[in-house]
């Protein structure tokens, strides 16, 4: 689009890029904010159905479609309270930090082939790192609120997120290793073809590690049973105890945004991304071998695929939340350090060995032929699977070191 | 079991403890001399063959008739009565102890009557004694933490005394 503006419209380079960035940001912001509204509505509806209730029924006609919007208007109209002892600047800043971190991560998040805010060659790293920044907002909120409950919530959040970034990073490295790239678009594209090409079904280790990833993802976005930072029966409301009105809703938007993001990431990394279980587009001959020239319909289909997969992930999180009791903080740490981290490490090693000895997977044919028809620049990565796995193992371990560095910080 | 033999044992173990008895009442009770309450309770819990290991309730009754016309007709002298309901989880029997205190120590209004605390015998007595202190104004000597429990800490007066009157105002709130 920037090229189009520069070449056809004749805008100067800086303006063209700014306009492009603005349009992309606008689109992402609206998609995500709209998505958050839908998810909040869905959560209320699902919680209600799980609990034998009806949930919202009236606002916006049937099914209470507009309930979230009505809530939003109510929140806008609410008084913006701040405790006397609060640190004014930090108190105001905290919700925006959380919100921005959650939404910035979407920049590198592909929705279909090349439908991505900014394609980054370190996309995985970027998403995980930026998502990790969300914790700063929470800590700021807890510290600035001048409430002991908020402080407890913030400290719990800090401890929890930092510890869960480690196994999460390790899980994320596995698809990176398989794809030989940290580019989310490449990772997604490598899983094109039939259902069996998804990394989830690549080998037994990846199947296990997907569930480890999902557990850690739930923990890192503070959803039950890991919602210790806002444990309402212990800490009143945790870090957002003192927030009201729109500021409070920013935290909520961030939470739902992160939920969607980690689910989307799960879809891209393990569930074939925007590739459906059956390669309809290729079977029907819509895309004549090259994804770059694929018609918009294919990309639209890809978007729908990814959104559907991410939504299923989010719904799964809601289901878990309304079923399970909450863990205690030391048990959360135990789950992470005693179970998730060793399992993730073992699976990581397992996938590595699998790549060395059974590089094509158990189901031959599918993967490499599917990729072979893709763009040329992809092919060089898969020319020699042994080499690529060795290279990517190095890359993987260095990434995990980097991630560990991020987590320790 | 709760007959005279049992009372004799108590009398032998703690001389001068039993000041009165009523074995015909609906709940047979023993009256214990106030100064002997603590040793008597300790004996009942630790040494007696029916170990009364549970203290269920402490009640203070204010025997005082504020209405002078009615007061002329009553048969009792004004006093505060403490009633201890004991229970044995081993033998599953209960026992009622009563003890009589003056309404005010030395008949000086404002001086709370004093009695030994039984917290050292039953730890459950802690809150019950605090409640009696709070509502009926009995000072339990030896209680580890005698504070008001139901009323606010700066409340004045003892509401379950018969001559109690609501304060006119409390922190700007109208009382009556």
């Amino acid at each position, binding site marked *: 689009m920037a090229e189009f503006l520069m070449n056809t419209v004749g805008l100067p380079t800086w303006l063209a890029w700014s306009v492009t960035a603005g349009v992309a940001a606008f689109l992402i912001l609206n998609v995500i904010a709209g998505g958050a509204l839908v998810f909040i509505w869905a959560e209320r509806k699902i*919680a209600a159905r*799980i*609990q*034998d*209730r009806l949930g919202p029924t009236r606002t916006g006609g049937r099914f209470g479609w507009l309930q979230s919007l009505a809530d939003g208007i109510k929140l806008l109209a609410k008084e913006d309270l701040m405790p006397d002892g609060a640190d004014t600047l930090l108190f105001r800043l905290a919700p925006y930090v959380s919100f921005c971190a959650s939404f910035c991560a979407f920049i590198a998040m592909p929705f279909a082939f090349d439908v991505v805010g900014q394609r980054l060659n370190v996309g995985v790293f970027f998403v995980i790192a930026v998502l990790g920044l969300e914790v700063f907002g929470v800590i700021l909120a807890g510290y600035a609120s001048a409430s*002991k*409950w908020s402080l*407890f919530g913030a*400290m*719990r959040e800090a401890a929890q997120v930092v510890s869960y970034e480690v196994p999460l990073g390790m899980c994320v490295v596995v698809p990176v290793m398989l794809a030989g790239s940290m580019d989310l678009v490449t990772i997604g594209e490598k899983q094109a073809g039939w259902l069996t090409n998804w990394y989830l079904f690549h080998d037994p280790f990846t199947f296990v590690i997907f569930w480890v990833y999902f557990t850690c993802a739930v923990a890192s976005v503070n959803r*039950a*049973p890991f919602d*210790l930072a806002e*444990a*309402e*029966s*212990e*800490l*009143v409301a945790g870090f957002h105890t003192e927030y009201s009105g729109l500021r409070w809703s920013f935290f909520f938007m961030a939470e739902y945004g992160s939920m969607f993001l980690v689910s989307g990431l799960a879809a891209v990394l393990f569930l074939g991304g925007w590739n459906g279980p059956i390669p309809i587009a290729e079977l029907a001959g819509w895309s004549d071998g090259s994804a770059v020239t694929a018609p918009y319909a294919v990309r639209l289909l890809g978007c729908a695929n990814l959104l559907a997969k991410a939504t299923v992930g989010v719904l799964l999180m809601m289901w878990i939340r*309304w*079923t*399970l*009791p*909450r*863990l*205690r*903080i*030391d*048990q959360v740490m135990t789950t992470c350090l005693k179970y998730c981290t060793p399992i993730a490490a073992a699976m990581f090693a397992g996938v590595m060995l699998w790549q060395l000895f059974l590089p094509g997977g158990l189901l031959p044919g599918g993967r490499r032929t599917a990729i072979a028809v893709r763009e040329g620049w992809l092919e060089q990565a898969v020319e020699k699977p042994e080499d690529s796995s060795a290279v990517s193992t190095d890359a993987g371990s260095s990434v995990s070191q980097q991630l560990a560095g991020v987590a320790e910080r | 079991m709760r007959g005279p033999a049992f009372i004799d044992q108590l009398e032998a173990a703690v001389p001068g403890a039993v000041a009165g008895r009523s074995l015909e*009442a*609906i*709940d047979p009770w023993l009256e214990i001399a106030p100064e002997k309450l603590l040793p008597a309770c300790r004996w009942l819990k630790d040494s007696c063959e029916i170990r009364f*290991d*549970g*203290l*269920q*309730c402490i*009640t203070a*009754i*204010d025997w005082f008739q504020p209405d002078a016309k009615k007061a002329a007709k009553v048969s009792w002298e004004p006093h505060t009565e403490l*009633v201890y*309901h004991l*229970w044995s*989880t081993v033998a*599953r029997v*209960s026992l*009622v102890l009563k003890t009589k205190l003056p309404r005010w120590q030395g008949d000086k209004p404002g001086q709370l009557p004093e009695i030994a605390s039984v917290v050292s015998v*039953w*730890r*459950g007595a*802690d*809150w*019950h004694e605090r409640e009696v202190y709070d*509502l009926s104004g009995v000072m339990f000597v030896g209680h580890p933490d005698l504070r*008001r*429990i*139901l*009323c*606010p800490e700066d409340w004045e007066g003892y*509401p379950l005394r018969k001559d109690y009157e609501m304060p006119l105002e409390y922190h700007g709130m109208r009382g009556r």
Partner: protein
Amino acid sequence: MSQVIEEDQRIIEFDVRTDEMLVNMGPQHPSTHGVLRLVLRTDGEIVSELEPHIGYLHRCAEKIGENLTARQWIPYTDRMDYLAAMNMNLGWSLAVEKLMQYEVSEKARHLRVLIAELGRIASHLVGMGAYGLDLGTFSPFLYAFREREKILDLFEEACGARLTYSYITVGGLTADLPPGWLQRCEAFLEQFEPIIREYHTLLTTNAIFVKRTAGIGVLSPEMAVDYGCTGPVLRGSGVDIDMRRDGESIYTAMYDGYAFEVAVMKDGHYPRDHEYPAVPVDAVLGDCWHRFFVRMLEVVQSMDLVRQAIDRYSRCKGPLGEPLKLAEKLPAGDAYLETECPKGQMGFYLVGDGSAIPWRVRARSSSFSNLAVAPELCRGCLIADVPAVVGSLDIVMGEIDR
């Protein structure tokens, strides 16, 4: 668990100097079951001391009782344990009847058992649901309330009220059951029975639930007795006491001929425990899990009792009998009676002086004594365990503060 804490404390001692923090949990806090204020002295997440402050719901019930006749005080007993108001009515009525040496008709006796045991089921359902809420799961709470609503519907049909019934009263009950009530009650029991299995799946055997409750807040039998703990709290510690079996004759006579086993662990087994999930390995007798499980067993036990009561009541030919007059004179003397309420043994004491108005009334609250043990149970636990422990005591502030 306790080892972890001890190690933590050592680390804190040697490595970093930390300050203790005073935290007010309540009176406006989601998990304090009303207006209870707990002052916690914490070091990080570890609670070194807990002190309950009560009295926020004090309504001078005992003082009011000195100005009303015995039957007029019935509505005030409703408002003590408002989750089991029927059992409160029963306790006070029986205490007054004990003083007056009055005996109700056989039909009234069976109807009282029926109503009181339904009240126990309703109360334990709330206790169970709210405990789930304390541990962070919301759904069982609503499942419990769904069934409780049906009991309240039955109560509403019987007496017109849904929360503060004043149905059982001195000398009998205010009204007989409406036609068809027994069938509806049986239908409810029929429908309710399989749902208990759901509760066990969602809570009792849930791995996270077990992790949060097993071995937490262990109350030894000696300490339980010493503090005057009663009811499921006492039985959860393995002390075999149930007033319905061990109480005074006026109360146990009500349950004459009824078959029930006290829900307490004997020789490592609960009664009929093959029908229920096995005790988890981590659970220690007297911990939160056992207190919870005893309540769950009592729900089933009460259902049995309700069935028996329906059977006996429907076979009773005689009249129900009228309750005593509102201003019936009380004899001089005093009487104390404890009954087995859902939360524990509720004692009522009254002193009569020959007039209709008692000279002194006293309510010995079970939750009051049960809460008094909380500081002992919470010493050295984590903040997250405080709701778990206090919730397992199943307290109702209306009864504590009176």
